[in-house]
Structure formats: structure tokens, C-alpha cells
């Protein structure tokens, strides 16, 4: 009875048109168009009739056609993973074509009830067999979050940062961190974007959604990643819109963003994204300042940071056409940006700088091309390319020693840290190509290729004589992926894939050809590497509301240019680095349930296991001056993460997620050692291993005026205390730790005229907890922000 009622309700929500066309012949034809509730075309749905053998699958425009239908009243069954199966009676008339337009409804009941803020897996991506979490970025567009901080609320992810806006950050996913996790922007690797265009300076408004792939990275994303990937999907709406926002807040922080698109009926398209961040970051920290005379430390006191200003400005412009036969999308664009960052401290807050700063810029032409049904139906091609001509520079020319009071004395170094005006370009280019062929509703074949170039060039005007010692520093990477996806039915899908990793590095080695003084010559050397990785992913709906997933990947990650050739600052290159590899296993389940129509729950749980070898890990170089990287040892990680969400009518939603990861050192013997390493199986230090988030939102409709809505949101973040160094070493109770962190954020959003005008007030770190992500580096205390946003879109 319930089922019938639901069906009835369902059919009310479905839009359905029924038209007849005259046609000759004895059989009837049924054609139609499938869309989701957002009006997006649905490809890959299977359409069948119970009393017929012929069936078909919808194409990328959501269209389908069934011929040879015996006349009469026929039942049409439409099914697609993640959507409610839909049945419909069609009156097939001989010689005529019946047209049906169906709006399919997502099969997640709580979705229709309440907007679940933040981290609801979106239907169209969740159908994949990969272990995936997607953030609906649109729901965060009224906040002042950047991409990094939005990701920080996802289970399994921890973003650690050194300080305030724009500060150095490190992203970790299930225990893999830094470059081991690959970042993508619309499927294009972000590895060459430089400091001016990074997760922590891109406002959330640039993104439509953010997808997090844990452990197994699908072939269509391409590239090499050891333990997962993050793909930022920017707005892909084929309509004109304008989204402009400005926010200001504590520490003289100003941010603005304008995102706009214009789509003409002819298919001509122009897109513009402009954003800017500025902050003095002059938040107070509790420190011991030095007496410049005696070098002793004064007692701890609160001081304001004074050399921490950060700003960046970025413009992304694209022009081209959409919806043409020759190009579903053809966009030529450019990304222009710059950033300026003052550096207040070294790796510890005991090291204070007063003038040291860095600059960077990005000048990156881009090309995006997509075409569907190339040569044959079902064959889709996309090609992307970009080349970054940007530069990076560290400026350290002031010969002073500062203390926390901003006082200074002259030193003899000619610099605060290391005298430098070194400026370099990495000349990074990336080309990606992705070819898909959907044979029919069951079989999908994909080929993906990503090619990356790196050609470091640099000089320092302070040391012009060093220019002649600059030597080739080049790296070429190619990652080729092949995959096959088998969709048995709407309940079960499986993917198999293989990836080939290929890298060539070119560099020079110095030698003395004659043995005479100053006689230096160089010989060019090159390293070549070739590896195969592979994997599989499968997902099955046990119940319409319960999906189970399992995936495995033998992954490789190729060392990047900076690891091979250094960052010209603190990281020294190691050209002999080999790829690191890992066996990644994931098992997960996702379940939606409800007590009644008012109380709904969703539960997601994931179990994962990682076994990584040839880990690229930092060591100190021979002089112990700089950091270098080595292929050394391995780790295992057995982890669980889960999320429970609850919603009550359309009034309230709340969720909690927790992550626990058991990262263990799996290096039994250190190099040149015959005894078992004292840290074998010890917990990997200085990585958070237990953390979680809780959030709650209250929604008030039609506040003061119809169409004006008020949302009150709360977010709580918790990170368990963890050790800076190996837990098993040293006297317990006297060890250095990163204290447990609590951080509470509250926001109130008032949206007027159904979201055209928005005003948001936020308070971050409500009770002013003192937080440290990294040892001794203090993060900002309580901060307030106000954000004003205007959004208009042409339907």
C-alpha cells in the first residue's frame, strides 16, 4: 500500500508529455528524453518493455528510441542506477511514434526532504563504483570557505596549515599526504599551477562540486596518484549567470569573487572567474620573545604577528562554443594570477622574520575540447591542455634578526635566512586526452592519457656568476590508462583498469675533465622509468537504499619536478628517486533509512587498507642543511571512517563523521641495518590519526518576507592529540605532542528573493580555542566575517 502511495506521489512529480506523430507501417515506435530533477540529461539508462525483447539505452543527450513495438497499451520500464525505477504505460499505435519525456527521480529519499548541507554524495557521481565522497559546493557558496577548508570537513581528510589565510598547507587523505594525493581541476591535474592558484586561495564559489576519490582513482581522471585524488568541478551550467560576492572580516581580511558566464543561443560562450584574497593575518599568538641583547627568552606573552600579509589575485577567462556538432565544448582560455606572501616564522615559532617574503605568478593558457558521438555513436573524446609560464621568487635581502616584538638587530648574513632573489620558472605543461566508447548499456571502454613536461630555469641577480652552473633540469611523464566498465544491470556495476606510468628525467652531473683548478664540465644524464598499475572497482545495490562497494588499486606515483630538482629553497632535489607504489583496498557501504517521513537517516561507512612501499620520504641531505627525499621503507594503514546524518522535516539537519587511521611503519630493516628497526610497527608520528566533524543546521523559510530564508549553521571540528615524534621512543609523559584541537564555527545566512541576495555572518573558532596543526605553529583565534553575495541566473 505504501509502495502504491509512493508511486502515486512520484508520478505527480514527474513531468510527462505525450505526443503523437503520424507514421507509416504496422509497428509502433517509442522515443523519448530522460532528465533528472535538475534538468540535466541522463545517459546510460536502460529502457525496456516486459513483453518485448528489444531494449535500448539512453545516449548522452538523454534520448532514446525503440522501434518495432507491437501496437497496443505497452508498459515501458526505465531504470538507471541511483534513480527510482520508473514504469509508464504507453499507447503504441501502429505506424506512429509515441514520445515520452521523463524526469527521473533520485533514489535517495532524504535528498528530496531536506538540503543536507555540505557533504552529501551527489547522485550522478555516486553511481560510480569508486570510494567517493562529493561535496556539493553550491550549498557552501554563502560561506567564506576556500576549497581547502571545505575539504577539511570530509571524513578521511585532514588539511593542516601553518597559520592564517594563504599560509602553507598540507593535505592528507587516509594517511597519504602532500603530493601523494593528486588534485584536479575539471579533470586536469593541478600539479603545475604554482603558488598563485592553490586549494587554499581558491574560493568555494569557483566550484560546483568537489569529488574526493579515496584510494582508487578512476582512469578518466588519469595521472598518477598514490592514494587518492580530489577533483574540483567548476560550474558547467549551459546558461548565463552571475555570482558576485565580497566578504570582510577579522585581521583585515577582504575577499571577493565574481563568477559569470554568458551563453548565447548560437552556442557562443564566455566564462569569467575573478577572485581576490587579502589578509594582514595579524592575529595574536602566545610566544616567548627574545631579548636581542642577551638572547634569553622573555616570559610568554601575547603579541600580534607583523610580517604575515598575504594577498592573491586571479583571473580565469574562457571563450568558445558549446553544444555544436563538431564540439560539445570548445574553450580557449587563460589563467592569470599573482600572489604575495610574507613569511612570519620558520619551521618553528622561535624563528621570527620581519621582512622575508615570496611572490609568485601564473600565466597559463588553456584549451578544453569535448566532442560527443565522434565518428560513431557513443564515442566521446575530450582533450585538454595547459602550459604554465609563471614564476616563483623568494626575497630575502634584509640583514636583520627580528624578535616577536618586531625589534631587530643587524646580522652578518646579508639576509634573515639565506640571501636570495632566486627566481625560477618550471615551464610546466600538461596535455590530457580521454576517449570513451559506450558500446551499449552494458559496456563502456575508456582510454586516458596524461602527458606532463617540466623544464626548470632560474637565476639569481645577487649571484650572477652562478648562472653558468645552471644545468638542464627536465622531466617528462606519461600516464596511460585503459578501463572497461561493465554494467550488468542497474544494481551492479564493475570497472577493471590498468595504467602505464612512464617517466624520463634529464639532468647533468658535474665532473672535472682535467683535474685542474676551476675546470668544471657537465655531462648529461637521464633516468627512465616504466611501471604498470592496475585495479578494479565494483558496486552493488543490496537494497534500493543500501549500496556496497569494493575497490582495489595497485597504484604508482612518479616523483615530481620539485622532488627531483628541489624547490631552490629548503628542498634539495634527488634525481635518482623512483616511483612510490601502494596497494589500496577499500570496502564501503551506504544506507538510507527513516523512522517515518519526518525523521530520516543516512549512514556511510568505509574500511580501508593501504600497503605502501618505496615511500618517498623526507630526509636531511649530507650537509644537513636542506631537506631531500629518498625512496625508503613502507607503511601500512588500516582505517575506518564513517558518517551519520539525520534530518527532521525541512527544519533541521545534523551530521557527524569520524576517521580513525592506524598508520604503521612497515620498514623492518633500515638501510644498511641488520637489526629490526626500533620503530618497526610503531605509529607513524606527526600525522593526525583520529579526527571528526559534527555539524548542524536550522532552516527557517519565509522569514520576514516570502522567499527570504534564514539558515543557522554550526560546525565542530575535533582532532585528537598526536605525537610529534615516534610514540614508542623516549620517556612517556615528557614527549612533544600536537595538542588536541577543538574548533567551532557558527554562521547565519539570510537569503533574500530566493537566493538572489545573500548576507552571511560567520564566527570562526567561537570560543577562541588555541589551535596548532603543526608543532608550535599557532593558528588564528576567534574571527568574524561578513559575506555579501549576489546571484542571478537565466533559466
Amino acid at each position, binding site marked *: 500500500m505504501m509502495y502504491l502511495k509512493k508511486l502515486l506521489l512520484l508520478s505527480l512529480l514527474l513531468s510527462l508529455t505525450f505526443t503523437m506523430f503520424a507514421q507509416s507501417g504496422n509497428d509502433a515506435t517509442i522515443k523519448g528524453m530522460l532528465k533528472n530533477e535538475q534538468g540535466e540529461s541522463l545517459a546510460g539508462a536502460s529502457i525496456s518493455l516486459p513483453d518485448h525483447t528489444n531494449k535500448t539505452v539512453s545516449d548522452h543527450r538523454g534520448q532514446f528510441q525503440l522501434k518495432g513495438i507491437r501496437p497496443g497499451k505497452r508498459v515501458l520500464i526505465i531504470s538507471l542506477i541511483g534513480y527510482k525505477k520508473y514504469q509508464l504505460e504507453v499507447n503504441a499505435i501502429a505506424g506512429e511514434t509515441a514520445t515520452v519525456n521523463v524526469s527521473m527521480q533520485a533514489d535517495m529519499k532524504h535528498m528530496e526532504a531536506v538540503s543536507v548541507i555540505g557533504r552529501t554524495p551527489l547522485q550522478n557521481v555516486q553511481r560510480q563504483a569508486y570510494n567517493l565522497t562529493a561535496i556539493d559546493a553550491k550549498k557552501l557558496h554563502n560561506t567564506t570557505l576556500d576549497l581547502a577548508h571545505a575539504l577539511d570537513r570530509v571524513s578521511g581528510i585532514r588539511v593542516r596549515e601553518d597559520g592564517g589565510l594563504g599560509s602553507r598547507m598540507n593535505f592528507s587523505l587516509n594517511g597519504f599526504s602532500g603530493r601523494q594525493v593528486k588534485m584536479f581541476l575539471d579533470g586536469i591535474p593541478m600539479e603545475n599551477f604554482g603558488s598563485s592558484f592553490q586549494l587554499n586561495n581558491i574560493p568555494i564559489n569557483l566550484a560546483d562540486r568537489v569529488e574526493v576519490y579515496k584510494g582508487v582513482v578512476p582512469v578518466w581522471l588519469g595521472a598518477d596518484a598514490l592514494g587518492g585524488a580530489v577533483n574540483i568541478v567548476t560550474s558547467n551550467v549551459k546558461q548565463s549567470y552571475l555570482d558576485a560576492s565580497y566578504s570582510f572580516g577579522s585581521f583585515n581580511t577582504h575577499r571577493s569573487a565574481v563568477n559569470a558566464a554568458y551563453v548565447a543561443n548560437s552556442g557562443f560562450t564566455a566564462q569569467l572567474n575573478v577572485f581576490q584574497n587579502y589578509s594582514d593575518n595579524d592575529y595574536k599568538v602566545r610566544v616567548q620573545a627574545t631579548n636581542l641583547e642577551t638572547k634569553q627568552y622573555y616570559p610568554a606573552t601575547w603579541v600580534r604577528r607583523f610580517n604575515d600579509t598575504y594577498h592573491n589575485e586571479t583571473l580565469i577567462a574562457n571563450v568558445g562554443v558549446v553544444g555544436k556538432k563538431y564540439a560539445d565544448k570548445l574553450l580557449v582560455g587563460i589563467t592569470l594570477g599573482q600572489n604575495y606572501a610574507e613569511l612570519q616564522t620558520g619551521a618553528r615559532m622561535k624563528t621570527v622574520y620581519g621582512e622575508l617574503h615570496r611572490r609568485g605568478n601564473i600565466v597559463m593558457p588553456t584549451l578544453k575540447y569535448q566532442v560527443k558521438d565522434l565518428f560513431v555513436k557513443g564515442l566521446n573524446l575530450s582533450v585538454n591542455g595547459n602550459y604554465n609560464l609563471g614564476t616563483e621568487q623568494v626575497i630575502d635581502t634584509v640583514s636583520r634578526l627580528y624578535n616577536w616584538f618586531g625589534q631587530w638587530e643587524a646580522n652578518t648574513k646579508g639576509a634573515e635566512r639565506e640571501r636570495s632573489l632566486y627566481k625560477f620558472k618550471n615551464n610546466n605543461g600538461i596535455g590530457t586526452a580521454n576517449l570513451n566508447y559506450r558500446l551499449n548499456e552494458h559496456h563502456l571502454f575508456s582510454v586516458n592519457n596524461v602527458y606532463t613536461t617540466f623544464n626548470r630555469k632560474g637565476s639569481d641577480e645577487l*649571484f650572477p656568476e652562478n648562472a653558468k652552473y645552471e644545468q638542464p633540469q627536465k622531466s617528462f611523464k606519461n600516464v596511460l590508462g585503459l578501463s572497461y566498465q561493465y554494467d550488468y544491470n542497474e544494481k551492479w556495476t564493475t570497472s577493471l583498469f590498468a595504467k602505464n606510468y612512464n617517466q624520463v628525467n634529464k639532468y647533468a652531473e658535474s665532473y672535472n675533465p682535467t683535474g685542474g683548478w676551476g675546470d668544471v664540465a657537465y655531462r648529461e644524464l637521464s633516468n627512465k622509468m616504466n611501471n604498470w598499475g592496475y585495479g578494479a572497482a565494483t558496486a552493488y545495490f543490496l537494497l534500493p537504499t543500501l549500496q556496497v562497494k569494493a575497490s582495489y588499486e595497485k597504484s604508482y606515483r612518479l616523483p615530481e619536478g620539485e622532488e627531483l630538482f628541489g624547490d631552490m629553497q629548503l628542498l634539495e632535489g634527488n634525481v635518482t628517486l623512483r616511483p612510490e607504489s601502494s596497494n589500496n583496498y577499500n570496502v564501503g557501504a551506504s544506507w538510507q533509512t527513516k523512522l517515518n517521513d519526518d525523521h530520516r537517516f543516512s549512514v556511510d561507512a568505509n574500511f580501508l587498507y593501504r600497503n605502501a612501499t618505496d615511500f618517498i620520504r623526507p630526509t636531511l641531505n649530507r650537509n644537513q642543511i636542506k631537506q631531500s627525499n629518498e625512496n625508503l621503507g613502507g607503511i601500512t594503514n588500516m582505517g575506518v571512517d564513517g558518517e551519520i546524518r539525520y534530518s527532521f522535516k525541512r527544519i533541521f539537519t545534523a551530521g557527524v563523521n569520524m576517521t580513525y587511521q592506524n598508520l604503521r*611503519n612497515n620498514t623492518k630493516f633500515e638501510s644498511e641495518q641488520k*637489526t629490526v628497526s626500533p620503530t618497526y610497527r610503531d605509529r607513524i608520528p606527526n600525522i593526525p590519526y583520529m579526527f571528526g566533524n559534527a555539524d548542524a543546521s536550522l532552516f527557517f523559510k519565509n522569514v520576514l518576507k516570502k522567499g527570504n530564508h534564514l539558515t543557522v549553521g*554550526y560546525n565542530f571540528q575535533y582532532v585528537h592529540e598526536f605525537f610529534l615524534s615516534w610514540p614508542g621512543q623516549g620517556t612517556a609523559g615528557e614527549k612533544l605532542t600536537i595538542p588536541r584541537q577543538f574548533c567551532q564555527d557558527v554562521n547565519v545566512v539570510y537569503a533574500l528573493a530566493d537566493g538572489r541576495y545573500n548576507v552571511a555572518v560567520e564566527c570562526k573558532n567561537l570560543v577562541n580555542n588555541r589551535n596548532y596543526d603543526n608543532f608550535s605553529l599557532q593558528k588564528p583565534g576567534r574571527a568574524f566575517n561578513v559575506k555579501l553575495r549576489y546571484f542571478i541566473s537565466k533559466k
Partner: protein
Amino acid sequence: MKNLNRILTLACGMAMLGVGCDKDDIDAIYDFGDRETSGKYKYVITATPAGTTGIADYLLSTDQLDNGAITTAGNGIEQDGSYRYYMTHKGRFFSLLYGQGNPGAVTTYRFDSAGSKLLKTSEFQTETVQAFTKVNDELLLIKIPRSGVETASFYRIDALKSQQIGSAAINIVQLAANGERAHFTWATQVGDKVFAPYMSIKGCCNDAFGTVYPDSTWVAVLSYPDLKVEKVIRDNRTSYIGNYFNDGLGVTENGDIYGFSSAIATNTSKVISTKPSAVVRILKGTTEFDKSYFFDVEEASGGHKISAQTYLGNNKFLLMMYGDKHANTGNRKMALVDVAEKSFGWIKGGPEDIQSSSAPYNNNTGSGDGELGYIGINTATGSWIYKIDIKTATATRGLEVQGGKITAITKVEY
């Protein structure tokens, strides 16, 4: 409405949850005032767990070095920073942070009056230095740039108060006067002067430590406390004394000064010294090399060069020798020399595969009566303190240090 109230109560509860008290981040500092030391000693062994990187040593304290075992597992004081160097003076144990170009920091420790626990007594800021020594009641720290700036900086630290009391600078390019830079290898108090041997280095061109002067010896004589260069003592029978971060001078009981040269000066990373690795002498009260004295250790050892030296008393020095002949490579081998008699002998009973050993510049653990010396040795199968019987030139295993590579052993008065 009832529901709304419930929700609001829940929200308030959640907010309260976060109002936890934050722990204070400033470490405890113990103040012993001007407590005099008792003349009793304890040993501090510094050890880094094998395979750890970017993490400073653990400080282990022990009453003896002769037998038993000590471990870093669940034991030892953890320190901040990545690389640290040590010195004991006036009953204090100083741990110097090597800040990789950044300002460094020095942490001072003392044992409590019962000698049972090593406690932090002070912290102060310094530059990252490449040489340090004891002068009177002070520490003298020397920062020597290997490129760029041409001034070496000297910092005088009051060892009792742990505070800086003076500084001085010396132009090292002018001092070298050969187009290269004078890079002080170490410094040693001799009478009321400081003797600072140096190596000549190019300081540029991706070959900072390379030189074209591989066959000369220099010792700068500095006044104290104003640290003016009074004289440079020169020689050309061997190469420079000491090495980067390596003390090459020893003063015997009668006041004579012996200088140890490895003769491994390089250019583009190739050894180009043509003179042998040897010991030279400056007689007490003079500021000239004793031309009548030359101890060709390379010849006496059958072709091996000196890597490092530790004075054991009675003219006896413990030498670490490079394993490969006429080269600066190979596993180290231990030897005992008597510099007055110019006698050389390999030490028996030591391990074959010495991967590294405890620092020589701060090793003050010798028994002082000419009987015993101690050295920490790390091998592929483990780490031990070896006891050196000076009379028989024999090494035997003493205290085992489990889990950690020994970086230094020192004797601290409390």
C-alpha cells in the same frame, strides 16, 4: 515548537563541548639558582632511533658505560628540532640546535642535586653555528658562512647564566688572503688565547668546500675576549687541521698542542691533497709550528688517513682512520697513537663494520688516569659503547644502546 527547543538545547550542548581548556604550550623550566656542583658525574648518551629523520636525539642518562644495556624505547628526553650538538661545561649540558641557516636555539640542562634526573634549566637563542668550544667560564660559538657573506661571527655565552655577553666578527676572506675563504674547523683555548685552525675553501660555484690550496696548514691565534686575529701560524708539510665540524687540535698535559690533518682537501669533490695525513706540533708558549716534529700517520698506518681524534691523556690519542687507503672513504677503523713517541697501533677487538661513532669533539668520558677511554660505535648489528684499554690498545664491548645510533657521549658533573 517542542522539537525546536530540543534542537536548541542540543546546539547549546554542542557549543559547550568545545569550551575545553587549552593546555599551556610553554615548557617547564627548572631553576637551580647558583647551586654548586658536587664533583660527581653522570653520563649523558645522545642517540637517534635508527631510521628516524628530521628528529633530534634522545638524551639518555646512565651511571656507567661498562656493561648492561640502555634503550630509547620508552626512555629518554625528547628534544625539539632536527639536528643538535652538545657540550658540557660547568655542570651544564648544552644542547645546540643546528637550525639550517635559521637562528638556532640552545637548551641548557642540569641534573638535580641527587643526580637522578636531567632537567631543562634554560633556553636561549643563537645563530646556527659550525664550531663551538669552552673558554674560561664561557661558551664560544662561531658561525662561519661557506658562501655569500664574508664575515664569521663569534658569540660569547656565559655558561652559568646561559646568556650572550658579547660578540665579534672576523672577515674570513681577508684572513685567507688567497682569494678563498678561511673556514674555521674548530677552536681550542690555549692559555689566554683561542687557537682556531681553518681550511681554505672557494665558497662558491656549487663547490663551496673545494680549494686550490690543498697542501697548507693554518691556525689563527685569536685574543680573548676581544677576538682579534693576532697571528696566523702556517705550515706546508701536511694539509689543513681538522675538518668541517671536526676538531683537529689536542692539548696535552704539558701544554703542547698537537694538530691532526686528514689531508683530504678536495676540488670538485675529488681529494687533491698531495701531502700525507699527519700530526704537527706547536710547543707550549710558542706560536710557531715545531719544524723538528712531524708524525706521518699515513705512512705509519700503511696508507690510511685520519678521520677524527679524541685525546685520552698521557699523549695518547684515539684516532678514527678511513678504511680505504689514501682516500676519505671506507668504514672507519680505530687506532691509538702516542704523539710524543710517534707510535701508531691499530686497536684490537673493535667491530669491523663501524658505520659511525660518537662525536669526538665533546667526548670527555676518558677515565683521566691513562687507563680507559670510551667511544660509541654504531654497526649494522647494533650500537655499543666500546671501552678502550689504553695500555693494551684493546676495545671491548661495554654498555649496549638499543634502538638508537649513538651520536655523542659526555660526562656531566652534578
